[in-house]
């Protein structure tokens, strides 16, 4: 069964460094998402991406964040200058049709900023 994959599973970085989190969505899906979950808190929406552009973003998704689909398979989240409060589990998700809202999630990347 097709699934969303994410790499790395765990990333440790120093404050101020740039990180790129990678995702490979399910191949025929059209909508892509990033969410994050700070330890002990809710899963929060960051951004959605469709037709090679951001379609919606939350207030969390400020100028330090960017997303890209550099080729036909990868979907990346970049954080330009990480802060301690960026430490969280980051989930990528994808979905197929506009008529169906169910999203399929990857296993997550745990980002630790020291």
């Amino acid at each position, binding site marked *: 069964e097709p699934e969303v994959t994410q790499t790395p599973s765990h990333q440790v970085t120093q404050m101020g460094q740039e990180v790129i989190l990678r995702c490979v969505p399910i191949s025929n899906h059209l909508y892509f998402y990033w969410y994050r979950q700070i330890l002990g*808190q*809710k899963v929060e929406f960051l951004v959605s991406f469709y037709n090679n552009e951001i379609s919606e973003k939350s207030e969390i998704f400020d100028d330090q964040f960017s997303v890209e689909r550099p080729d036909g398979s990868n979907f990346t989240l970049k954080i330009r200058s990480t802060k301690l409060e960026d430490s969280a589990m980051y989930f990528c998700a994808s979905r197929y049709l506009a008529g169906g809202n169910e999203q399929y*999630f990857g*296993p997550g990347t745990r980002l630790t900023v020291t």
Partner: protein
Amino acid sequence: AQSVTQLDSHVSVSEGTPVLLRCNYSSSYSPSLFWYVQHPNKGLQLLLKYTSAATLVKGINGFEAEFKKSETSFHLTKPSAHMSDAAEYFCVVSPGGYGGSQGNLIFGKGTKLSVKP
């Protein structure tokens, strides 16, 4: 504004007994509602979804949920718990209904289910 409230942060049951995980939602529109499960060190797996077709929704692994508009609830149940059901469960709402928006999801805080032998 849309929101989801999961009424219990932790539920503990014995194997073979029923499971009830409670969820209330708030939505301005006819909502799409979902339950996701997260096993330790695993991703979020879709258990079931409500999309206005039927109020009683059956999902995987014997779980089901009933949409009650009058109570704004979408509780998750299972007649008989199994040890493998131990996980964290998230009630989720999609603003704008089925297919009506770009579909960003709003999560509840999660309920951790423990199953005792």
